């Protein structure tokens, strides 16, 4: 419920300030798309750059940036994991495929995947666990057409939780990968 509200709020915010480059909120878990928030226009689905290395469309701001379009799967940036698991759940496949294809058609685009864990256990071992989560997502992106050089995987371990609580609800939100594009 909270997430839905937040998602709607993000969409409204994004629609309201489509010319400024507030990309922070794009990293939120926008699980529910708001169909009314299409103010930034339709996505340019990787048209121009096949075979050409050049500026990624992601860096040219303005209206046609699919990374900032809340109706695009590219605006989804978080993948959540089960306890003690590195398996990317099926529900994320459409979103991951979209990111993989985007990297494929925008060879200049670069992303970092930041893996995280919940607060239980050794800080350093959790750095390694978060790294494994980030690597798991990268592997899928490579299958969808991204190249090795486009993706750096790093880990925050348990150091940067989304929620500070010491309960299952918080832990569920903290076991995750976050995608951040270069320049964002």
């Amino acid at each position: 419920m909270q997430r839905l509200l937040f998602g709607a709020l993000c969409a409204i915010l994004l629609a309201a300030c489509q010319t400024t480059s507030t990309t922070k909120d794009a990293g939120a878990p926008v699980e529910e798309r708001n169909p009314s928030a299409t103010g930034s226009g339709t996505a340019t689905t990787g048209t121009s750059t096949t075979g050409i290395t050049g500026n990624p469309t992601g860096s040219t701001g303005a209206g046609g940036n699919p990374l900032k379009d809340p109706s695009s799967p590219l605006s989804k940036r978080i993948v959540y994991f089960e306890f003690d698991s590195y398996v990317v759940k099926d529900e994320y496949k459409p979103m991951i495929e979209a990111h993989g294809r985007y990297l494929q058609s925008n060879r200049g685009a670069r992303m970092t995947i930041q893996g995280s864990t919940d607060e239980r256990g050794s800080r350093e071992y959790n750095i390694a666990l978060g790294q494994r989560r980030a690597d798991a997502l990268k592997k899928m992106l490579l299958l969808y057409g991204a190249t090795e050089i486009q993706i750096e995987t790093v880990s925050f371990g348990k150091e940067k939780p989304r929620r500070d609580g010491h309960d299952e609800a918080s832990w569920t939100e903290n076991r995750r990968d976050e995608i951040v594009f270069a320049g964002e």
Partner: protein
Amino acid sequence: MTRILCRLLLALAVLTSGAARAQLTIEIVGGGATNIPIAIVPFANEGTYPLSITQIVGNDLARSGLFKIVDAGGVNPRPARPEDVRYGDWTSRGADAVVVGSMTPLSDGRIEVRFYLLDVVKQSLLAGFTYVVTPAQVRATAHRIADVIYEKLTGSPGVFSTRIAYIAKQGSKYELFVAEADGFNPLSIVNSNEPLLSPVWSPDGTRIAYVSLENKKPVIYVQMLATGARQVVANFRGSNSAPAWAPDSSKLAVTLSKDGGSQLYLINADGSGVQRLATSAGIDTEANFAPDGRSILFTSDRGGSPQIYRLTLANGSVERMTYEGSYNVSPRHLPDGKGFIFVRRDGNRFNIALQDFATRQVQVLTQGALDESPSVAPNGKLVIYASEVGGRGILAAVSSDGRVKQRLTAAASDVREPAWGPLVK
């Protein structure tokens, strides 16, 4: 460019370091079984100085849990030299040892501190030292006296003169502090708005390596304590973490993900000459050198669950060390090389434990819910670790026999990631 940024950050750190009050307060929460009764007579003339030197000595000894401080009040005249001591005064009070001494101002402003440790039972002198110090060195001198007493009466070196490092988190600010072993005089050496973790002292005591997320990824730094200058040691593609010093302070074992997965590497302390230490399909991390430098303990999940393994450097052979339980991590050698401290999970609890190399016997030392990040005192007698009370991070210490427990808390701060510094030569 990044170097300039680092300098700026450091300058900022120095400027703002006074802001956080992360002074630790120590509370003894469990006593030892064998207490040596000792009387400490206030030193002649010590009342003219702002710090009571004998009180600091007494606090140090009491905190170790191995001593019982016998009341020295009412003995008249107060002895200051061995020849002044009437042993009958002390046998009647049940003291096995007595400390006397004096402080004499010198013409150059310095102080001559004399102290004597006497065996009441044998009626003999155990130790006698004279120090000439500045008024600013009185605390350090008290710790040194406590070290001498501890060593003479227990047979192990004292660690009262050593320092500890720890991370304090206040709001969204992270600071790396270095303080005296009793928590006094905390000095902020790095300060960041992003997490800091895994500080480790170089065995020569001149540098601290740590991990910082200030560049939006884990990067390993080494910082000189004398100058505050710091250097990036590992900033490869991916994550760079879990630094561990080799005994000669020239190299570090680190965990890097640059070639895929989290794997162990050896790197020079200036960041040059990186070489791979081991290869596995799983996670290898949390290296810790044996005191002789010939092997490394580390955490790996190559067998399915995180367990502790030993890598022999000469031939690359790897041997599993822990078998009990499904989560054994964060190994740290005891300085005598006979065993190691680690963190084990039992159900939902994480506790500090000790395993003996020869017998493979495991002794659980703590009973908290979330005990982690152990660091062993250089005499092997105490382990400092991070724990949690009421949702707040605190530091705690336990003797390596599990009997003596202390709690170190800092007002208004989460404290974590303690690292015990080496013996002061």
